[in-house]
Structures are given as structure tokens and as C-alpha cells.
């Protein structure tokens, strides 16, 4: 029987695992989070599983899949993945086919004060809210770019936060284009967006506006917003700000998978050109939303289990859904002025506290790493190298195993 290992239990990973198992493969699904669902289908103590996710969760229950949450893939060695458990030991799982569905993370553009407590990502705020963070009565500025900001503002408001405003860096023209495109390609998303607005009404949605600075003491107390010319200061208790998403390509990099613009390159069946036994699905191949991620997962799952005919049937569906991905790219393209956000004393590498001033004199990620320790901390450059790729056009750091900090014990206790 074909052994299929799926890394990442978000929509793409769950769809891949279901399809592969239903096609007769032996499937193991791994995720480092304590819960299934990834980011978009995240649930937690006070938050139930979203409706659409429930269908897939039930399907996963019925499919004969070995599910391991709280376990992290730290390396890919030949045709096996090395997995670190919560108990800090490690073991290997051999695979015939490997599906990487590692999703995406947020892009943070460092601005003065972004290291203050209670300044976090937009999706970050959403995730922490579902993890039990109380927000009742807090004044929150939601900022950055992309349709996620609506959902975040909506959910925060529903939980009792007072949304000060949503600061979207994109301008009117692009937003109008996005609204029209969404109506055309994915009208259900439009309704969803309108639903969120209801909760944070009457907070203003400020276009062509971004967070220039956060000020505070033991935590953020106010932000400075700008449109590039005028500035306004708003008191607040929390800032939820991020500039869209970047694919988590670390494991794909480890196996030498080709990348373009930070995305894993795949063929029509989601296979990586360098190794046709390794597949990538979902946001690791580019940011395109949950429907596209599911379709890509289904294609990879079917193809990995040897059911290529069924996989090919889904290809036109994916092509259609990719249009929404392109719309996102076009409409929320980041303004050049955002590159001026960090000042010389703004910290870029939060793990090692390296400032922009120290980094500007370096020529690339590698020299920055060697001379300043930028990117050598716990997050292994996941936050700063994406920021520096945007700010200075630096290519990403090379990736070495283990891809996340691992205790020595994990190598000894095998």
C-alpha cells in the first residue's frame, strides 16, 4: 500500500489526507499545532469548529487517517520525515509520497514601536482571540492590508473589543477593483465580508492609510496613522497589523524545491519538479484562499494515492479559483512608501534585537547573519527575513535542518 505523509492539517492538508485515504493509501497527517484546522479553520476553548470545516473534519474522522497533532517535522531525510514529539523525542516516518501543506504566515513590515506588548499580527490577533485572549472593552486598531482585516475586526468586535479603525494601505481604485472581482469570482466571499462589517460598525475603514508608529510604555498606548502626508494619532490598547501572507516554504526549500516569488513551484498535479514524490498544496504554492487550498489538497491527495484520473478532473476548478488569487495579488500590492516605515533604530530581528541601522550596511541575508546574528534566533529568520526580502529585496536565508529549534534530547531519544 502507498504510504502518504501529509505535513500541515489546515484545509489543504485535511483535503489531501481525506482524498488519499479514500483512494486506498495509508495516510499520516501531522501538524505542530495542538488543534487541527490550521489558521483559517482554527477553533479553541470558546470557539467551535467553523461550519465549512465541520464537513471536512467529519470526512477526516471517517477516512482511515492517522492524525498526529502537536508534532513537528524537523527534517526530511531521503524518503522519511523526522518528527519531533511534544515529549521532546523524535522518530522517523517513511513515505512513498509526501504532501507539504504548511500554509502561510503573516508578513510584518517593522515600524517604530512594533515590538511593544499588545502589538501583534492581524491573523495573530484572531488566533490569540480563539486561544482565549480577552479583548472586552479594549480599543483595537486593525491595520495592514488584505481582506483578512475585515474578518479580524469583525471577530474582535464580536468578542467585545472596540475597533478604533481599520487602516488599509491599498487605495480606493484597487479596493473597488477587488470588490468587483470578488463579486464576479466568489460572490459568497462578498456576503461573508459584509457580515463582518456589521459587527464592527461604525468603525471607519480608512483606505490609503497605514500605521506609522506605535507608542507606549509597558504596552502600546497609541498609534500614529498616516496617508503619506497627513498624520493622526489614535489612543488604543492593542494593534492588530499585518501586510498579507507569505508561504511557509522551509520544508520545500530543504528538499531543493524550486521557488518563484517565495512560492513553491508545482506542476498540474501539485508535484514538485525536482521530486515527483513530493507534492505541495495550499498557500505554500501562493496565497489564494481556502477554496483553492482545498482543491489543491484534493488534487495532491488523489495523485499521491495513484488516482491521477480523478485528480485531473479537478484541475479546471483550480484554474478558476486561481483567478481570485491573482485578484488578491493585484489589488493588495504593497505601496512603495511602506519601505520607509522602519527607522534606523527600529528592531527588525526580534529574536536577536537587531536594528534596521545595523542591517542596512550589510549586503545580503548571509552577511547580515554572519556579522549581526540577524535571523539566528529562535524563529530562524521566519519573521525578519520576510521583512528584509520586502524592505531590501534580499533573498531568503538558506534553510538547514532541523527547521525549528529542537532539543538535543530529540536526537538522542529516538
Amino acid at each position, binding site marked *: 500500500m502507498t504510504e502518504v505523509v501529509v505535513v500541515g492539517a489546515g484545509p489543504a492538508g485535511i483535503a489531501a489526507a481525506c482524498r488519499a485515504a479514500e483512494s486506498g493509501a495509508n495516510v499520516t497527517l501531522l501538524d505542530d499545532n495542538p488543534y487541527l484546522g490550521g489558521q483559517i479553520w482554527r477553533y*479553541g476553548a470558546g470557539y467551535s469548529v467553523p461550519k465549512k470545516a465541520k464537513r471536512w473534519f467529519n470526512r477526516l474522522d471517517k477516512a482511515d487517517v492517522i492524525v498526529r497533532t502537536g508534532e513537528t517535522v524537523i527534517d526530511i531525510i531521503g524518503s522519511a520525515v523526522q518528527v519531533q514529539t511534544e515529549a521532546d523525542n523524535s522518530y522517523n516516518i517513511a513515505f512513498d509520497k509526501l504532501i507539504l501543506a504548511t500554509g502561510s*504566515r503573516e508578513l510584518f513590515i517593522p515600524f517604530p514601536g512594533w515590538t511593544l506588548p499588545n*502589538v*501583534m499580527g492581524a491573523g495573530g490577533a484572531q488566533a*490569540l482571540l480563539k486561544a482565549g485572549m480577552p479583548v472586552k472593552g479594549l480599543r483595537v486598531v486593525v491595520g495592514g492590508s488584505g481582506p483578512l482585516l475585515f474578518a479580524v475586526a469583525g471577530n474582535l468586535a464580536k468578542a467585545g473589543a472596540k475597533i478604533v479603525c481599520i487602516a488599509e494601505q491599498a487605495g480606493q481604485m484597487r479596493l473597488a477593483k477587488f470588490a468587483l472581482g470578488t463579486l464576479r469570482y466568489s460572490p459568497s466571499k462578498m456576503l461573508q465580508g459584509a457580515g463582518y462589517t456589521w459587527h464592527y460598525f461604525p468603525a471607519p475603514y480608512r483606505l490609503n492609510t497605514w500605521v506609522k508608529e506605535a507608542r507606549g510604555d509597558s*504596552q502600546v498606548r497609541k498609534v500614529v496613522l498616516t496617508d503619506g502626508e497627513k498624520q493622526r494619532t489614535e489612543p488604543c490598547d492593542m494593534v492588530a497589523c499585518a501586510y498579507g501572507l507569505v508561504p511557509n516554504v522551509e520544508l520545500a526549500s530543504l528538499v531543493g524545491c524550486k521557488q518563484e516569488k517565495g512560492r513553491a513551484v508545482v506542476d498540474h498535479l501539485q508535484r514538485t519538479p525536482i521530486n515527483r514524490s513530493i507534492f505541495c498544496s495550499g498557500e505554500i504554492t501562493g496565497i489564494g484562499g481556502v477554496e483553492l487550498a482545498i482543491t489543491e489538497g484534493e488534487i495532491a491527495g488523489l495523485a499521491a494515492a495513484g488516482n491521477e484520473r480523478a485528480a485531473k478532473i479537478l484541475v479546471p476548478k483550480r484554474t478558476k479559483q486561481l483567478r481570485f488569487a491573482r485578484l488578491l495579488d493585484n489589488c493588495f500590492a504593497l505601496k512603495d512608501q511602506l519601505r520607509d516605515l522602519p527607522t534606523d533604530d527600529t528592531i527588525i530581528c526580534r529574536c536577536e*534585537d537587531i536594528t534596521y541601522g545595523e542591517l542596512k550596511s550589510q549586503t545580503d541575508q548571509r552577511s547580515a547573519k554572519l556579522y549581526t546574528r540577524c535571523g539566528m534566533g529562535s524563529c530562524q529568520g521566519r519573521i525578519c527575513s520576510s521583512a528584509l526580502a520586502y524592505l531590501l529585496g534580499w533573498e531568503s536565508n538558506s534553510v538547514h535542518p532541523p527547521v525549528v529549534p529542537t532539543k538535543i534530547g530529540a536526537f538522542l531519544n529516538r
Partner: protein
Amino acid sequence: MKQITVKVNSKSIVVPEGSTVAGAVYMAGETAFRKSVTGQPRSPVCGMGICFECRVQIDNQPHQRACHQLCREGMEIRTL
């Protein structure tokens, strides 16, 4: 929903079962989770296990990601 009790900096906190350690730290009224290498207070940024800014001490184990662990009855959590 079943409730469980954990300690955050010696203060007892009751949280719903399934809460993450990060949730419990916030519920305890803390905004600073760890101190950076130059001594600045920090709190979670990504909420999903990427940024490592939410690190706290859990049952004497340092550098544990608060967003990635679920609360267990009697757990002792320390910030900064």
C-alpha cells in the same frame, strides 16, 4: 465546559479546558510574556507558533511557546 486551574506567576487562574497557555497568561492580566535579549518586554505576534515571542516557562521548562501548548490542570506558568 470543563474548567481547569493553572498558575500564572503564582496567581491561580481558572480557564476553560482547551485554552492555550497564551490564553491563560492574557486572562491573568499579563501583557508581557518574555524579555528580549536586550531586556525589552515582549508579547505574542503571530499567534501560530512562528515568531517565538510568546515564550514562557512552563513547569520549570524555559522557552516554551505559550501559543502552542494547551493548559493542563495544575500547570505552573511563569512570564518574563
